[in-house]
C-alpha cells in the first residue's frame, strides 16, 4: 500500500517529467492508431467486396498477430533501427487485425435486403456507403477502434525499452534502479491513460450508434 502512495507522490513530484512521458506515449500510440486506421479502412472494404481476398488477408494478419510484440519489436529494429518508426510500425501491424476484422464483421452484419433496397431506390455506390453502410457498420467498427487503442497504449509501454520514451520508461527505469515508487507511478499512469481513452471512445461509440 505504501508503495502505491509512493508511486502517487512520485507522479506529483516529477509531474513535469511525467507530462513529457505522457505526451510521448500518446503521440506514439495515436500515430500508430491513425496510420493503422487509414490502412485498415480501405483494406477492410476491399476484403468485404472481393470475397476470395478475405481468407488470405485475414489469415496473414492473424499470423502476424500471433508474433509476440517484443519479438516483433526486435525484428523490426533490424529494419528501422532504434526509432519511433519501429514502434509505430509494430502498432500498425497489431492494430490491423482488430480493425480489419471489425470492419468486415460490421459490413457483413448489414441486412442484404437493406442494401438491395438502397440500390433499387437509386443510390449510387458512394451514397450507399455514406448513408447506409457506414452508419450501420459504425458501432462495430468503433468497438474495434476502442480495442485497438487500448492495445496501442499497452504496446507503446514496451517501446520504452528501445529508448523512444513514453510512460513505459518509468517501469524500465524503476526495475533498473530497483525503485518501487517509479514502477507504481508507471503502472498507475498507464492504467489511467488506458481507462480514460477507453471511456472517451465508448462515449463516442454511444453517440454515433443509431438509436434503434
Amino acid at each position, binding site marked *: 500500500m505504501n508503495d502505491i502512495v509512493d508511486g502517487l507522490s512520485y507522479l506529483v513530484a516529477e509531474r513535469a517529467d511525467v507530462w513529457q512521458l505522457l505526451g510521448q506515449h500518446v503521440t506514439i500510440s495515436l500515430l500508430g492508431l491513425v496510420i493503422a486506421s487509414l490502412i485498415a479502412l480501405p483494406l477492410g472494404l476491399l476484403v468485404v467486396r472481393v470475397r476470395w481476398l478475405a481468407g488470405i488477408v485475414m489469415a496473414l494478419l492473424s499470423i502476424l498477430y500471433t508474433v509476440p510484440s517484443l519479438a516483433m519489436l526486435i525484428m523490426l529494429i533490424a529494419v528501422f533501427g532504434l526509432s519511433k518508426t519501429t514502434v509505430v510500425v509494430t502498432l500498425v501491424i497489431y492494430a490491423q487485425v482488430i480493425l480489419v476484422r471489425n470492419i468486415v464483421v460490421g459490413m457483413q452484419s448489414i*441486412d442484404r*435486403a*437493406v*442494401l*438491395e*433496397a*438502397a*440500390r*433499387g*431506390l*437509386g*443510390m*449510387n455506390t458512394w*451514397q450507399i456507403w455514406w*448513408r*447506409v453502410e457506414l*452508419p*450501420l457498420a459504425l458501432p462495430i467498427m468503433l468497438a474495434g477502434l476502442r480495442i485497438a487503442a487500448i492495445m496501442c497504449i499497452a504496446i507503446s509501454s514496451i517501446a520504452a525499452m528501445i529508448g523512444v520514451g513514453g510512460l513505459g520508461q518509468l517501469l524500465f527505469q524503476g526495475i533498473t534502479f530497483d525503485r518501487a515508487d517509479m514502477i507504481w507511478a508507471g503502472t498507475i499512469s498507464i492504467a489511467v491513460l488506458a481507462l480514460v481513452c477507453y471511456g472517451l471512445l465508448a462515449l463516442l461509440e454511444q453517440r454515433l450508434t*443509431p*438509436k*434503434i
Partner: protein
Amino acid sequence: MSTIEFQNVRKIYPKATTAALADISLTINRGEFVILLGPSGCGKTTLMKMINRLIEPSSGTILLDGVDIQTVNATKLRQQIGYVIQQVGLFPHMTVAENIAVVPKLLGWPKPKIQSRIDELLSLIQLDPAQFRQRYPAQISGGQAQRVGLARALAADPGVMLMDEPFGAIDAITRTILQDEMLRIQQQLHKTIVFVTHDVEEALRLADKIAILHEGTIVQYDTPLNLLRNPANQYVAELLGADDLVRRLSLIQVRHVLQPLPKSYDASLNTIESSHNLRDGLNQLLASSSDQLLVVEHNQPIGLLSLAAIHAYLHPEVIHERHR
C-alpha cells in the same frame, strides 16, 4: 404512368446451361397493374429486375416510354421507378419519415416539399403521421413496415412501381388488408405496376393482367377472367385452377350478372353491393332464405341477383351475351 416494352429480351446467367429468360416480348401499358406469376425459378423476378437495371439482359431491348433504358444512367433510372421488396429493407437507422424521404432527398427536393410529402404518404397508407413519423423500423409491425416500404417507393411519385412479392412474408389476415389497400391506392394513383408473386389468389385478386411464366418463357398474358375462361394449355389451367368455378366467380362483379329490377319487387330481400363479386353473392344467396338478392348501388336498388343467373353465367354460350 408509363409504358414498358420488352423486345426479344433474353437472359443467360454465366455458367448456366439454359436461359433464365428466353426471348421475352411483352408490353405493359400505362396505368396497368400487371402481375408476373409463376413458380420459383421461372424467371419472373429476373424479368422484373431488368426494368430498373438491377439485372441486365444478355440481349434484347427494354423501352420505358419509348426510351431504351440502356441509354439512361442506372441510378437516375431507379430514382424514377418505385421499388418494393418482400423483406421490405427499411433503413433501420432512419425514422419512418427519413425512410420515406430517401428518394426525394436524392432528387434534391426542397425540405418543406419533402416534409409535406411525408405526411401525405403516411395518410395515404393510413398511418397517423403524428404517431409514426419519428418511429424507427424496429418499433413498428411487419404489416406497418411494408406500408412504409410502399410509401418510400411512392415518395417521388414514380410512373412505374416494381413490387417483388411484397406481401409474401406477411400473415394471411394482414396480407388481405394490404391487398385491399393496394387496390384502393391504385384506383387513386393509376401507376404502371409490375408485381411479382407465386400466389395465384393474390394474382387473380389484384391484377389487370397476368403474365404466366414457365421455365423462362411467357406462356400466356391476359386478364384474369380470360385466363380462367381460356387457359392456353394444361399448365396454365392447373396453375390457376381454371376448373374451380367458385374461384372464377370471385373475379366477376355482381353488376355484370344482375337482372333488371322489375316494376314490383320484394323490398325485404337481403341486399348486396353491386361492386361485390359473385362469390360473395353466391355465399349470401346460400345463406339467405330467398333465392334472390337485391343489388344496390349507392343505397339505391338497381337489380336482382338470383341463383339461376349465376348458373347461367357459368355456361360459356350465355356468358358472352350477359357479360359486358
